[in-house]
């Protein structure tokens, strides 16, 4: 009985203290935060004019492969604009389906064929993003690293520059710049 009571009290204390701590850090679903990052990239990255078919064309965020980010992204970009352009979210099951695209999120299932995917979009002005290990080293541009329940960014600046993309210093300042070894 005493044991039961002690257990009950400690559980209550635990829950109460957790509830206090909860207020100190904002929390959100990982996929939700990634979706907002993808949205933000549109504001911190500059594309060459040729990347858009015309001045009113939308900025396209594409998702290659099945990923929970997908559902959150629609919600995140709804009604938003960047430099006078609306957003459009597209889903691809294979790299051949990608036509006009500005930010490409490559989900892990497709990451198995990552080298092929990266090779086929290499010379195009597409910001490639993934959470795959070694993404930046393998020629991808932005990697989400989930570390201690927080998302950090790794950016391969050389790869972005090679695709004629400019990345704002505001973004670069908070990211880890990765230079693939041997370059």
């Amino acid at each position, binding site marked *: 009985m005493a044991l039961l009571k002690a257990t009950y009290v400690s559980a209550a204390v635990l829950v109460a203290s957790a509830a206090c*701590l909860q207020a100190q*850090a904002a929390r959100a679903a990982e996929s939700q935060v990634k979706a907002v990052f993808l949205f933000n990239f549109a504001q911190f990255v500059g594309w060459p004019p040729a990347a858009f078919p015309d001045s009113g064309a939308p900025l396209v965020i594409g998702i290659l492969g099945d990923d929970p980010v997908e559902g959150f992204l629609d919600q995140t970009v709804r009604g938003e604009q960047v430099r006078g352009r609306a957003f459009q979210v597209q889903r691809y099951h294979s790299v051949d389906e990608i036509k006009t695209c500005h930010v490409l999120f490559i989900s892990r299932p497709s990451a198995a064929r990552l080298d092929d995917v990266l090779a086929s979009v290499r010379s195009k002005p597409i910001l490639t993003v993934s959470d795959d290990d*070694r993404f930046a080293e393998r020629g991808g541009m932005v990697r989400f690293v989930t570390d201690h329940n927080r998302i950090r960014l790794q950016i391969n600046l050389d790869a972005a520059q090679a695709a004629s993309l400019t990345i704002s210093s505001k973004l670069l300042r908070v990211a880890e710049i990765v230079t693939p070894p041997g370059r």
Partner: protein
Amino acid sequence: MSVRSNALVTSKGHRPMAGTRAVAAGTWILFAFLACCVEPGVAQQPDSSLSADSLKKLSIEQLMNVEVTSVSKRPERLAQAASAIQVITQEDIRRSGASSLPEVLRLATNLQVAQVDSRQWAISARGFNSTTANKLLVLIDGRTVYTPLFSGVFWDVQDVPLADIDRIEVISGPGAALWGANAVNGVINVISRNSKDTQGLLVSGGGGMELRGFGDARYGGTLSPAAHFRAYGKGFARQPTVLPTGLDATDDWHAAQGGFRVDWDPSPKSQVSLHGDLYDGRISQPGASDIAVTGHNLTGRWSHAISAGSDVRAELYYDRTHRDIPGTFGEDLDTYDVDLQQRARLGARHEVVWGLGYRNINDRVVNSDSVAFLPAHVARQWFTGFIQDEIALVPNRLQVALGSKIEHNDYTGFELQPSGRVNWRLGPSGTLWTAVSRALRTPSRIDRELFVPAQAPYFLAGGPDFHSEEELAYELGYRLQRGALALSAATFYSRYHGLRSLEQVNPPAPVPLVIANGQEGESYGAELAADYRVTERWRLRAGYTELRVHVWAQPTSTDMSGGRAESNSPDRQFTVRSSADLAARLTLDGTFRYVGDIANQQVPAYGELDVRFGWQPVPQLELSAVGQNLLHDHHAEFGSPSTPGGRREIRRGVYGAVAWRF
């Protein structure tokens, strides 16, 4: 890649055999020998959880500081595989409260996992389970962990720092074409995290009932921008299991292990890694000195991307293992292995993978008078090659993979293990797959070189003509991933030829017996798995497996084993798992499992519950309380009731743990 072995010998659950005490005595000795040696989540979002609108107002720095929850992370890379694959992620491992590799494997619902005593486990897929199960291939970071004695796994020396595992891929069904020998009914592939992803200091420890105490420390650092390392040390002490009477079974044990891993990227296209482990364990046994198990291993790997769609990799490892069971058995085994593999895209539709391998073992056994491997000292080698072509018949819709392994071993010469797989994508979310495979379990030392007693005349003798056991497997499966729901179903029918038998040499005289291939078998069943993300913070998973195995003697056979060694699997098992992120930084996970009875061993059906409660007061610190097998004081999972000394039962366990990251 190559050796596999049999389980006949495990037929501990033998019936009162056609009479004679001599058979009984001989079989007992064999069994005794083998037994010892070879042996609700919260649906609503807490107030502090941020919406898309509030997240959009944050600066990039603030966004990077948002704590993310990922209970709903999807199993990765499952969608395309044309086989019954399940993946256990690091998150799954951490939240399960499992404290050893075999406990972690309970998370794969397509495996049969049974704890035999404090250190021994019977683990298999699609039946044929025993402590000497021989139809499953287990790899730890590319190193095949098996013993050439019986082509099974000594689970008491397969320890891995659980926090450093990236994922475990578990395939039920044959994987022989790519993976090779032993991969008759399944493959378990344990993959560690790159040392780049395990930087900093992690210290954890705890203890309780059953798992009396444990401590782990790992440090990861940077050698240069392109090179990282980690080193770890760990130890544990476990309490003994109990006999059905509740008495202590005197099998408590303790072990320590240390190791390292270095990852280096010499160029953007190349990766090199080197890792090794060193371990030492002591296990009590009744009436004799402690069992000692020690060993070390070293693995080097190199991979290089030649171009998009083409890469080459090489791997080299050395593994030393020593086992001393005072009064019964001793063994020193050295394994040397080298593998080479290349993948190349040919034209628009073909992706070809091929490889070559060589393995050499040096096995030295210390025999006793009652049972012996003869000769005591052997050196054996295996040569393997494989090729597989994956053809995109209709790009992104219909894929066909054709391949085969070819192997040469010292027992049976050349062996061929082909397979064909078809993967058909139905719409955006469904995949239908089917496969036909031939897989072999080639002979191991126990089939050819086991003698009881150690001097003639023998009760039991290894079979000089023992050849490979053959399986023809037919599989059909479907996988669906739609939004928050993932479902998979795999069905199979397998036919086995030449399963191990114990043949009377001079019937009707019950002894001597010789090991041969006198049995046939078939198995069929279905493995169902479901994964439902109820909310971002609550995930439910379930698994259900139905399995039938029939084994019978060939018409000309005088088999005395009666297929018992091959039939120690429950007809069905069911698991349901809930993972919930409660209010802030509190997680609650529970797993209920039901395992049907093992009729052959008179192991009753049982249901058990594991629960873990985790709390992270600050991101660096995690406290957890774990309860394992909570529903009974003790329960039996595997083994005949007439096991020498009594069948061991598994007790309820409760422990607390603290983990601190710096």
